[in-house]
């Protein structure tokens, strides 16, 4: 077996986080397959407590909370996945180009990155989602993705700049390879673990961004997500009426996902960045 993989698997933190994430994904993927009812369809009254009819009770308009949790989790994960991929892709593209080409290109790209970094993300998120005619799952994910790439771009640029002076890159350049082929074959493979860790962080922050936007009332239309469940619970006064079943599940699920992704990232970091390990 690959020694890095063996090292990862021997870490309790890694196994715990992967275990939790697998359970979470399984719940979101298998749940709706086993129970095909529509989550946006009322099954009872306002805030019915948990019963055999709805095992996590009903929300403010009588929807089944358990059913909503399955579908909402799916939406949140999809938004996180799309936004994470978009943010990582933009960050890697800008970071590698700036780091590899250097000079004027580097100045312009990093200048752009610094400008985007200093404008608070929540501001751009709010303005973009306000301007949208209708907010779908995909458009919301894209908005989150195009606002959160700068930190990744900065980190990738630093990595690329240090890889650029390696001998195998010089060899490729001397043998006449073009810029893109060098970046693709001589730079990217050497920081794959790094890119993956950046993606994990982006995924976690995108899921939380969706929840924050939804809580402000800017969530995706005509669908349910973890953030929208929280929004309904807060607007419907679930907390103050003591309907714990309506807000605790999404709250705890968000917390668990965020914690598991952080654990995963930190255990990956320790294995791939040996300098961080302490005896």
């Amino acid at each position: 077996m690959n020694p890095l993989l063996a090292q990862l698997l021997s870490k309790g933190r890694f196994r715990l986080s992967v275990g939790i994430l697998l359970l979470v994904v399984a719940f979101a993927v298998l749940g709706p397959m086993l129970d095909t009812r529509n989550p946006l369809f009322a099954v009872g009254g306002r805030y019915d407590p948990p019963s055999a009819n709805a095992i996590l009770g009903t929300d403010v308009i009588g929807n089944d909370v358990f059913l909503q949790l399955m579908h909402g989790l799916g939406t949140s994960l999809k938004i996180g996945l799309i936004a994470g991929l978009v943010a990582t892709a933009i960050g890697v593209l800008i970071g590698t180009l700036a780091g590899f080409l250097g000079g004027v290109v580097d100045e312009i790209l990093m200048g752009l990155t610094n400008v985007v970094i200093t404008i608070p993300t929540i501001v751009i998120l709010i303005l973009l989602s306000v301007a949208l005619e209708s907010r779908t799952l995909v458009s919301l994910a894209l908005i989150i993705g195009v606002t959160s790439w700068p930190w990744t771009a900065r980190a990738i640029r630093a990595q690329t700049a240090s890889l650029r002076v390696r001998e195998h890159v010089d060899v490729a350049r001397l043998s006449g390879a073009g810029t893109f082929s060098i970046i693709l074959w001589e730079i990217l493979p050497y920081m794959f673990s790094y890119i993956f860790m950046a993606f994990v962080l982006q995924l976690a922050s995108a899921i939380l961004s969706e929840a924050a936007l939804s809580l402000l009332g800017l969530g995706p239309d005509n669908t349910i997500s973890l953030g929208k469940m929280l929004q309904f619970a807060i607007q419907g006064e679930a907390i103050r009426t003591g309907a714990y079943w309506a807000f605790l599940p999404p709250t705890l699920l968000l917390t668990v996902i965020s914690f598991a992704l952080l654990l995963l990232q930190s255990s990956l970091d320790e294995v791939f960045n040996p300098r961080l390990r302490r005896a």
Partner: protein
Amino acid sequence: MRYALNKAAWYTMAFLAAVVLNYFLPRLIPGNPVDTIVARMAQGGGSEGEARQQIYQTFLKEFGLDRPPLEQFLNYLGNLLRGDLGTSFGNYPAKVADLIAASLPWTVALQLPAILLGWILGNWLGVLAAYRGGWVDRWAFLGFLALSNIPYYCLAILLLYLFSVALPLFPSFGGYAPGTTPHLSLGFVLNVLHHYTLPFLSLVLVLIGGQAVGMRSMAIYELSADYVHYQRSLGVDDRRIVRSIFRNAMLPQITGLALAIGSLVGGALLTEVVFSYPGIGSLLFTAIRQNDYPLIQGITLLVTVAVLAANFIIDLTYGLIDPRVRAAQVGER
């Protein structure tokens, strides 16, 4: 000096970018923005008939739609410079600047003490955990990690439920008892503090976690420094040693404090929403529900300016404190 000018230029660009975003995004809505906006507002239960006509005229004039585009933008900039953020749709004819001015003190009073206390306690606990080591450190670290990682609005929801619903120790709503008007008396101040406790606690706890995680790793690094060994060999008592570690590991943490103060306005919008606490967050929440574009724009601009100003000040002081930063920025690049 060149360093300061260079930085000022970058921040001016970031600020302009933010202003342009702020200006154009609501205008991206297809059609005549004023038509759309007034129509959307009407859907949200706005006013009718003659009143609406009057509102319509106000915004037509404010947006200056009958003028060429460049003049519209310059007009907007001119108004900004005079501190005029336009008129609110949702609370017509209140001025956006006045609405913000009325809410901002609540947000600052909630956030500033929370940030300061969280920062001090977090750093102190971080050093202590690192110094004690062993199982204390292990469990404390796990606790800090958990606190810093729980989304702050989730912690707010949990606290609200636990301590005002399940155990009704604190009020669950607003900044002071409904029906009273703010005035200066012992009773009112106590009432405000009673409402203040939970939102304050939810912010402090998250901050403690975040600061302690950072400080702990800095302090572990300092523990192997010569001065710590030296103090130990002299038999200096623990509290003195902890204090000197604290002082040495603090510089990077000061940046964290400045950044936290900069994101004060925009950092915890949702805390106010969860606790229905008056302030910028609740104002924004209502503005979004009412499609109140001028108010939304005013708030986002305020949040941006606060963050930009904090970053600018940090950059300048770093340049002053550490000549290497200055050289790296001006010389090399």
